[in-house]
């Protein structure tokens, strides 16, 4: 599912502009997910200094996907991109067990942000192809997703480098966009 087909599905939505925000620690796979959505080459990704954005437009309808760098030094700037977010997509490297706690910490801080209140949350448990990867259920447990009561959320296992699972996650996101 590319960006255009998401756009087509969303056409029934009354809003003219939709905004998806991709966040997560560095090396989680955010840019790879963004590029695979835009059907671009994913073998030549570089660490994101700043942010990347992909936009598609069709019949006056616009979809923007924002991918913000995950390095510790950049995280303070995440908040500049919260406004008007329709879906928060949080990407986790399922094989980076050492930083599972750190990524959980960052996510819980995000969920307390006023500007992201009630925004549906999609978590990608990425890199399921790696040997050390833990399952999506274990990630959900580690992140304490089951304690979230104030918004819709979903966890989706995926392998962004192969495009596996990315589509399923976005289908959920499309269905759960709130009317403003």
């Amino acid at each position, binding site marked *: 599912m590319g960006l255009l087909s998401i756009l087509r599905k969303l056409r029934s939505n009354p809003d003219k502009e939709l905004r998806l925000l991709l966040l997560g620690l560095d*090396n989680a796979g955010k840019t790879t997910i963004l590029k695979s959505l835009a059907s671009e080459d994913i073998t*030549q*990704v570089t*660490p994101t*200094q*700043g942010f990347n954005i992909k936009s598609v437009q069709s019949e006056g309808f616009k979809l923007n996907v924002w991918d913000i760098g995950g*390095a*510790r*030094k*950049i995280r303070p700037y995440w908040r500049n991109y919260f406004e008007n977010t329709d879906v928060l997509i949080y990407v986790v490297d399922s094989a980076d067990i050492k930083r599972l706690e750190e990524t959980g910490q960052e996510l819980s801080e995000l969920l307390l942000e006023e500007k992201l209140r009630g925004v549906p949350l999609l978590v990608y448990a990425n890199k399921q192809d790696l040997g050390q990867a833990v399952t999506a259920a274990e990630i959900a447990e580690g992140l304490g997703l089951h304690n979230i009561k104030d918004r819709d959320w979903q966890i989706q296992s995926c392998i962004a480098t192969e495009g596996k699972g990315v589509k399923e996650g976005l289908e959920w996101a499309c269905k759960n966009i709130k009317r403003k």
Partner: protein
Amino acid sequence: MFRFKRKSTISIQHGPIVKWLLRHTTRMCELQRICYGELCGAPRTLAVEESLKLSRNANIKTLIVYLNDFADQRAITKQTKQKILKEAIVTILVTKKINPTAHPDFAKSFGKCIELIWGYRQLCVECEELRKTPYDADNPEHELLLLKLWNLLMPYEPLDARVTKQWQHIGFQGDDPKTDFRGMGILGLENLVYFAQEYPSAATHVLSHSTHPRYGYAFAIVGINLTSMALRLLRDGSAKTHIYNSSKSFPTIRAFHQLYCYLFYEFDGFWIDSKPSNMMEFSSIQEKFENSIRMALADSSTVFRINISVDNV
């Protein structure tokens, strides 16, 4: 660092009738006219490249396939180079009925174009192989190269451990750089090491800018993004102008590293001059920088030179 300019002549590719007329009035074929009429370096080499590409002559077509094969297998080496060049020159002399005694300069001039054109092609293959080699923390050579980068940039500050937050001082994202090279692989690291090793004062100067309280950025990460930019310029052929003008003979990986060093040093100045409000402006400033470099490369007289005096300051 400055851009070097030379006068250039405008090259025109002629249609078959004009070519026939020129051949009979000047008694020279198109390749000869290019080699005598165009300035050496990019203007001449680009014109020869275009002329060969458009040729409908079977011998020339076979020659191109033959040379492409050598370059694609990275088989043009010090040992094979002279033999390959000689074969190429002889093919042209025979096919175009050029008398080498009457035209002694043609073979030399044309041979250099062949070296540049297929050297460039082989350089693209070599860079791609390095890019596709992922950084591997289990490979002692990769690890040594990484430590070398640290020692070159931070000679007075030893690393406390292999995995440490200190890596962030030279602009890696976390406490282990191994995951930062991503799609640029070992090429990204080799570029950084070359910059730090060959232009120590320039690299230190850039590194100190990167820690500026207001206009700071992540040195290594920006460096890896610039590897990606240099590779884009190489692949789409934009870098030909610079490489053809700057190489005395067969361009090697050194030519790519040199281009990278120029880009890094220039980007740093461009960034500071742009007075960014924070590092989130990287993509837009990088895009503007890339456009300005592409504009310069569109002029066939352009050659990027790293001003050596910088390194003595």
